[in-house]
């Protein structure tokens, strides 16, 4: 902590003495706005990644994580979107949540408000059922859902989040209908599943990896098997085209100066091959999948279109 203070002081002094035009980015501390409280998944990602980004930005770079919790991340991301595009304010970004918020609420930003740096985490969805439900394979689940439309209750962490979209995709792909039970967060949803109060749940793999004995985990919504549960088959292997997950990454306001953008992009791209970084993320149960720049923008855009089409068909609020 003292170190940060010292660095900040030095950087501050440097920025006072150095001429603004000639100085090389970054000449003062870079603030990363996290839209959640300290200790949440997004905060842990930002704090884990910070020292590595400092390393790749080069000598003297320092990153300060600033928590601005509230409105499921919307306060923080709005602040980042509307900050000066000088490269000294970055923000964390969650998908599909941040895009869904532009649809189900009034938001002071849209998908063009950002410079897309890198998506870092992709936590894929899994379908789980409670032990008492007897639905221990995907086929049984789908058969039962077709027989009794709406009879299966599905626990998830919220409406308009990744698990909700996963269920919509499942319903569309299999022409089934489920009853959604949106808990406040994934932990109570998981507890309700363990207690057998709901039959099925859609969660993320990092949340159930430890519970494979107490729950039936039916599959994972990725294209390749996850390192957190190598024995768990993907849905594609089981003949169901369902790929979905919760993503977390970094953005900056739109309109960064070109040299700054290039430097940041370069730093984030290097994270991909840093084994030390990948290990640190694995230790905090964060499945890493780094997508940078233009691809990240495209990913966001696709998710916006998906969310929008879902909203047009069945608005959730």
């Amino acid at each position: 902590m003292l170190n940060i203070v010292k660095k900040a002081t030095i950087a501050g002094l440097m920025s006072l003495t150095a001429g603004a035009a000639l100085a090389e980015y970054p000449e003062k501390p870079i603030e990363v706005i996290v839209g959640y409280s300290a200790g949440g998944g997004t905060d842990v990602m930002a704090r884990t990644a910070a020292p590595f980004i400092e390393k790749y930005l080069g000598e003297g770079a320092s990153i300060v994580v600033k928590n601005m919790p509230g409105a499921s991340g919307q306060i923080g991301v709005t602040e980042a979107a509307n900050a000066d595009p000088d490269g000294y304010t970055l923000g964390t970004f969650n998908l599909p949540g941040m895009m869904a918020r532009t649809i189900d609420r009034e938001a002071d930003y849209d998908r063009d408000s950002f410079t897309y740096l890198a998506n870092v985490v992709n936590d894929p969805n899994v379908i789980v059922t409670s032990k008492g439900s007897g639905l221990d394979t995907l086929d049984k689940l789908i058969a039962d859902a077709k027989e009794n439309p709406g009879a299966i209750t599905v626990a998830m962490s919220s409406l308009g989040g990744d698990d909700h979209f996963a269920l919509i995709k499942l319903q569309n792909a299999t022409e089934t209908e489920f009853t959604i039970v949106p808990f406040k967060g994934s932990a109570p949803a998981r507890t309700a599943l363990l207690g057998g109060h709901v039959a099925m749940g859609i969660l993320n793999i990092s949340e159930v990896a430890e519970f494979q004995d107490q729950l039936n985990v039916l599959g994972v919504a990725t294209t390749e098997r996850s390192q957190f549960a190598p024995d768990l088959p993907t849905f594609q292997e089981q003949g169901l085209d369902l790929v979905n997950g919760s993503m977390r990454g970094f953005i900056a306001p739109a309109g960064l100066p070109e040299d700054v953008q290039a430097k940041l992009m370069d730093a984030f791209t290097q994270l991909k091959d840093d084994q030390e970084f990948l290990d640190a993320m694995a230790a905090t149960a964060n499945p890493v999948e780094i997508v940078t720049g233009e691809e990240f923008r495209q990913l966001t855009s696709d998710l916006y279109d998906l969310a929008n089409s879902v909203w047009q068909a069945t608005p959730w609020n």
Partner: protein
Amino acid sequence: MSESRKPRLTRPETLTAIGIILVAAGFLIPTVDLRPISALLPAAMLIGLIVLSVFLLLADQRKAKAGEDAAPMTKSPKRVLGAFGLIVAYAIATDFLGFYPSTAVTIPLVAWIFGYRSPIGLLIATVIVVGTIWAIFDFGMSQDFPAGRLWDR
């Protein structure tokens, strides 16, 4: 009709009851736009507040009729309003001028206005409080306080 008779409508409890009824009724308006299940609890509470306040109003008016004087809420309204006003002013000053300058001024100012006038005591207290806050929060925990919106741009 004697002159000593106090006005019945300005009794603190009566005023409070009327205030609650008006505010609760105001909050009831937006509940119409909500889904019924979503409006259930808030509407129940607001209606509860209105009904209970009517009871409170009636009870207080009955007391007034019986000639009971309402207890005054404060002996020195000026000091209460002044204290509250200063606290609000301090919050606004923190917001716009920054935490440390506002605090350094507020501690001695409030204490002085309300009767503690020893210059040395004020100085020592201000230095100790501001210094301790800085040491614990700013230095020790790298917690930021408002820097003041005025200087921002």
